């Protein structure tokens, strides 16, 4: 090593604190980069494995035409190298279940023949036992073990047949068709009488789905199967088996299987979904019925066309830029300070003959040494931090998929290389300017200018003017009047000095931008996550409706439901969350209330709620849910949104709370649909009279005015005819009864039990029903419960028994329908993703905050420490501590103002960029500058500046005046 090298090393060693600060800056930058990259790869890896475990790793699937030898076609494709692997699932038949079993397992026992590789491709795994090997062996869901006491080795005996469509009793013609509601065959032909139904078609029940067909089993044979294994999970994303018909059981190598067959394939070398679709079309030789495993493909980084991808890459691009800028600034400041402090040294070296090249090399060497120590350190810190965060996160993630996939940090080598290279590039970029400055410095300048702040040209001009002896130190400015000489000195420093204040101001501006980026990210991602994860917020939901009964008025119904709810609350595992009755009702309201979503009915690209719009007379109409919420829940909610609950109980002046907006998803973009622009009075259509016959219900439709081409919204009343048939009648011929209802409040959120998706909602307290019963049909009942100790399965079962007993037998009434939903079981990827995204945002926010604060600390502290000799002089001639503090405080305020305003402007730009990324996949959002985060950002920045200034002053004072004055130039 040459002399300059040794000198560099020595000076690094001699200035331990400064070296440590520089190394820390580099390490922090590397840590941030690797943390972001590792989070991405780890989450992706985890989601990939989770998806693989729950649904298999197939990439495309389709129905196969050849049911006699379904594997042949795929085998040929595999041999031709078109696909990597394949699996075939083929219907064997549908087992008949007892009524009791039907309650647990669904309509049938669908038996599916699986080919080799179905375990990895389709995610069919045995939790106990082994996979089936022949047509007499079967694996079933482990509910059979829990509920029916079946053990491995037991034999299941049941009649097995084919599903066949039969015309419902009241349907009139034998040529009737109805759309095929299949998950896998959305484009298949309509269902006709006598059609054999495959496992992808939902159960047909004309009385429930409103169609014209029922179904029956045909070609029934007695079959015996030996149970060889249990699955704890049936992959529900197997699109070939409808969720609706039952829980599938799997057998293998059945030579007689000749039902509908579905092929699942994997392939390699694909970079986008279009290529996969094309290849799948070649393999399956059909182009209509191909389903892609889109979530899997997303985790394989195969690009799709969805808007969410544009959002994702947009956000990543904005964040990456912010990170790079933050890192460059941090490292640049660290080096600039190091070089500035050593200017005198360089002057000395230059005076004893060091060339510019040697000086530049010295700084470059310093950068290199700092990078060699800082980058690996940062990588370790970043990866370690990720490992700790993810370890802490694991319990929350595994809940979602039952702990099937271990959550391990995945550090990809390219991420490490990329982070290291980016950081190194940042270091080189950051030392370039200081190095150039070092090379430019002349020996004398460097020796002289040491520790002397440079005065700007403007400052020189200003000072030249201030020579009137009579008006020296006159308190002209308000700061001088309030803060005295400290304020005046600060003002002079700010007006006449160069660069150092600016560095601090820039770092403050940057801090604001960083914090606001994090804030905006949280805000806008929050919208997206909320829209995607608008899942139910309670564990078990009960829904029911009593058979319409003319003799049963609304208050008697409330009594029955309330009794049922109170009985359910008695269950030891139940934590009641409230109950409600709801009705779909028509309302009419003036234009000034109508939200945007009702106004865009002409624009087909705009988001439109399905049931609302401009009526022919210019006012607006909509079908909304009117929900009577139990008084306790209603009161609590009213208080929460700042309303007085008492005002909602006045029978002479009924009032409601309405959703301001609702979430929707039109397939490509999430939407936040504005429902109401402002609160106000609406007219509720409570009933109607069609030529003496009461209207039984209201539907709605859009029609186009043939003259103007404008879409008009109309209500479609219907009346009950003979045999309970329903006929629609023209609205113009109906005399409607209306009642006035005040929408007193518009709420951004609704109580958990109400929800925020789909149809607009108005809520009123239950007691209002005693005097005001809106709606022409009998209401439906919903109740929500959380489960104590996570015993949601037991709770769902016991609530079902209690509710059915209460509503059916005890009340003497009949139930029209009853549902129970165990939402904990249904918690899906959306929820898991939401958790992950939230944690990621938190992580990102913390790191950005750290960088912002570190940067402010670095610049502010150093700008003071570099001036300690100047301060010592002032103190030696009588500057008191108080005056010193006032001066620094005033200077800080002025940095603050200089940094805050550009910082805010820049933040608004970054914030808007992020917003426009998010709106690509979510419409109906208005841009709101995140003021709360702005306030937080300003508070954090001010605090950081205050602490830094205090530390800087402390350091200046700790160096006592004598030492500071004596401080050598070198």
């Amino acid at each position, binding site marked *: 090593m040459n002399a300059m090298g040794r000198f560099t090393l020595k000076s690094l060693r001699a200035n331990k604190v400064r070296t440590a600060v520089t190394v820390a800056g580099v390490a922090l930058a590397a840590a941030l980069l690797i943390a972001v990259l590792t989070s991405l790869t780890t989450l992706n890896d985890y989601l990939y494995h989770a998806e693989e475990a729950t649904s298999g790793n197939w990439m495309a699937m389709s129905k196969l035409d050849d049911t006699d030898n379904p594997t042949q076609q795929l085998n040929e494709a595999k041999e031709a190298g078109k696909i990597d692997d394949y699996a075939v699932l083929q219907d064997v038949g549908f087992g008949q279940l007892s009524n009791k079993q039907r309650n647990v397992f669904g309509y049938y026992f669908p038996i599916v023949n699986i080919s080799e590789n179905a375990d990895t491709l389709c995610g069919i795994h045995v939790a106990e036992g082994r996979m089936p090997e022949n047509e007499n062996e079967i694996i079933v869901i482990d509910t059979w073990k829990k509920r029916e006491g079946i053990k491995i080795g037991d034999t299941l005996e049941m009649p097995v047949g084919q599903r066949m469509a039969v015309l419902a009793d009241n349907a009139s013609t034998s040529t009737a068709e109805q759309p095929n509601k299949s998950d896998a065959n959305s484009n298949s032909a309509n269902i006709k009488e006598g059609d054999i139904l495959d496992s992808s078609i939902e159960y047909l029940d004309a009385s429930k789905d409103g169609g014209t067909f029922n179904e029956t089993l045909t070609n029934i044979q007695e079959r015996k199967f030996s149970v060889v294994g249990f699955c704890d999970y049936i992959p529900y994303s197997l699109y070939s088996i409808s969720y609706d018909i039952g829980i599938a059981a799997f057998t293998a190598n059945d030579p007689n299987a000749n039902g509908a067959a579905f092929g699942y394939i994997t392939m390699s070398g694909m970079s986008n979904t279009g290529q996969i679709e094309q290849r799948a079309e070649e393999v399956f030789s059909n182009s209509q019925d191909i389903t892609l495993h889109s979530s899997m493909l997303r985790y394989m980084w195969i690009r799709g066309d969805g808007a969410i991808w544009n959002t994702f890459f947009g956000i990543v691009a904005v964040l990456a830029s912010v990170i790079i800028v933050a890192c460059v600034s941090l490292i640049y400041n660290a080096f600039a300070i190091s070089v500035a402090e050593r200017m005198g040294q360089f002057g000395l070296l230059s005076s004893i003959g060091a060339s510019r090249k040697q000086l530049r090399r010295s700084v470059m060497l310093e950068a290199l040494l700092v990078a060699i120590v800082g980058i690996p350190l940062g990588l370790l810190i970043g990866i370690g931090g990720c490992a700790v965060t993810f370890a802490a996160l694991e319990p929350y993630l595994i809940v979602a998929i039952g702990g099937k996939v271990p959550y391990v940090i995945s550090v990809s080598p390219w991420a490490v290389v990329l982070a290291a290279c980016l950081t190194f590039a940042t270091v080189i970029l950051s030392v370039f300017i200081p190095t150039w400055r070092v090379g430019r410095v002349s020996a004398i300048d460097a020796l002289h200018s040491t520790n002397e702040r440079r005065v700007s040209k403007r400052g020189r001009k200003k000072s030249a003017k201030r020579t009137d002896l009579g008006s*020296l130190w006159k308190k002209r400015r308000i700061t001088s009047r309030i803060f005295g000489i400290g304020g005046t000195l600060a003002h002079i420093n700010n007006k006449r000095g160069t660069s150092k204040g600016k560095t601090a101001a820039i770092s403050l501006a940057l801090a604001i931008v960083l914090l606001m980026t994090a804030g905006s990210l949280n805000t806008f991602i929050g919208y997206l996550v909320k829209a995607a994860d608008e899942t139910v917020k309670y564990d078990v939901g009960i829904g029911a409706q009593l058979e319409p009964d003319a003799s049963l008025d609304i208050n008697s119904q409330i009594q029955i439901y309330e009794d049922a709810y109170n009985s359910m609350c008695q269950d030891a595992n139940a934590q009641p969350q409230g109950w409600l009755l709801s009705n779909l009702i028509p309302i009419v309201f003036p234009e000034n209330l109508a939200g945007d979503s009702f106004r865009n009915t002409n624009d087909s690209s705009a988001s439109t709620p399905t049931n609302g719009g401009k009526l022919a007379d210019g006012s607006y109409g909509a079908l909304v849910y009117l929900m009577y919420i139990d008084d306790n829940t209603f009161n609590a909610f009213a208080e929460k949104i700042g309303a007085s609950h008492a005002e909602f109980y006045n029978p002479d002046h009924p009032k409601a709370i309405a959703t301001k907006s609702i979430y929707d998803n039109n397939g490509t973009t999430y939407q936040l649909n504005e429902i109401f622009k402002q609160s106000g009075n609406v007219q509720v259509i409570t009933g109607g009279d069609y030529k003496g016959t009461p209207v039984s219900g209201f539907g709605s439709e859009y029609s186009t005015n043939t003259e103007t081409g404008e879409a008009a919204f109309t209500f479609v009343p219907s009346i009950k005819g003979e045999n309970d048939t329903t006929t629609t009648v023209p609205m113009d011929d109906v005399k409607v009864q209306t009642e006035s209802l005040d929408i007193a409040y518009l709420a951004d959120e609704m109580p958990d039990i109400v929800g925020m998706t789909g149809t607009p909602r108005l809520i009123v307290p239950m007691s209002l029903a005693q005097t005001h019963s809106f709606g022409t049909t009998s209401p439906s009942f919903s109740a929500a419960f959380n489960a104590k100790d996570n015993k949601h399965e037991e709770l769902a079962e016991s609530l079902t028994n209690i509710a059915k007993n209460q509503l059916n037998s005890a009340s003497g009434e009949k139930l029209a329908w009853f549902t129970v939903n165990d939402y904990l079981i249904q918690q899906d990827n959306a929820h898991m993703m939401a958790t992950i995204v939230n944690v990621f945002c938190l992580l990102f926010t913390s790191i950005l905050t750290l960088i912002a604060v570190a940067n402010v600390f670095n610049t502010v502290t150093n700008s003071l420490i570099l001036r300690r000799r100047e301060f010592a002089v002032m103190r030696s001639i009588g500057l008191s501590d108080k005056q010193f503090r006032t001066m620094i405080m005033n200077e800080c305020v002025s940095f603050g103002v200089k940094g805050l305003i550009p910082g805010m402007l820049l933040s608004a730009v970054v914030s808007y960029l992020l917003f426009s990324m998010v709106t690509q996949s979510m419409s109906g959002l208005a841009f709101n500058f995140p003021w709360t985060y702005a306030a937080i950002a300003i508070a954090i920045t001010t605090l950081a500046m205050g602490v830094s200034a205090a530390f800087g002053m402390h350091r200046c004072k700790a160096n006592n005046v004598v030492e500071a004055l004596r401080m050598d130039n070198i």
Partner: protein
Amino acid sequence: MDILTVDHLTKTYGENEAATHALNDVSFSVAEGEFVAIVGSSGSGKSTLLHLIGGVDRPTSGNVSVNGIDVYSSTDEQLAVFRRREVGLVYQFYNLVPVLNVVENMTLPVALDGRAVNVQRLSVLLSKLGLRGREGHLPSQLSGGQQQRVAIGRALMNAPSIVLADEPTGNLDTKNSREIMQLLRDSNKEMGQTMLVITHDEEIALSADRIIAIEDGRIVRDERIRR
């Protein structure tokens, strides 16, 4: 009357075996209007003595009283007031505030004290110091000699009880050195300003009323020059 009394002043750096006595039990007093030169080799403790008298440092033991004020019994805040009113400091390296112009630097102690600038005195000082026409210049626009004149102006502006100068000519050429010393002597004679000047220059030392020689933190010689 004694304007300065130094009483058993000791300043020790470090502890136990590593302890160094920068000043070791130094006592003397200076009468009002006296011009005292302090001489001694490098590291003998001269500057430490000056800083202790000026109230910018605190001693390990001993007392200093200036114009009847017991310097070290004051609080930090009182000490700051003491420095701006009772003491004028002149350094070898001038130590001007870089962003302030000539008149602002000179009047800074007055401004710190919150008092109005005595325009007449300032005007007289500017003339005497030869700084007329340079009122608006910044330190970086002045030569070394000019900067030192500003520093002297700053020290004299408040008419302090005592001016402490630490090698005020150490950084100047002969011509400038003579001029600066003449300025100090003039203010001593004409304004009766008490002066304590550290110097290596024998000629300067001999022009003082009294020479105090310090070696290894002790006074080894204290003599009055008889003219």
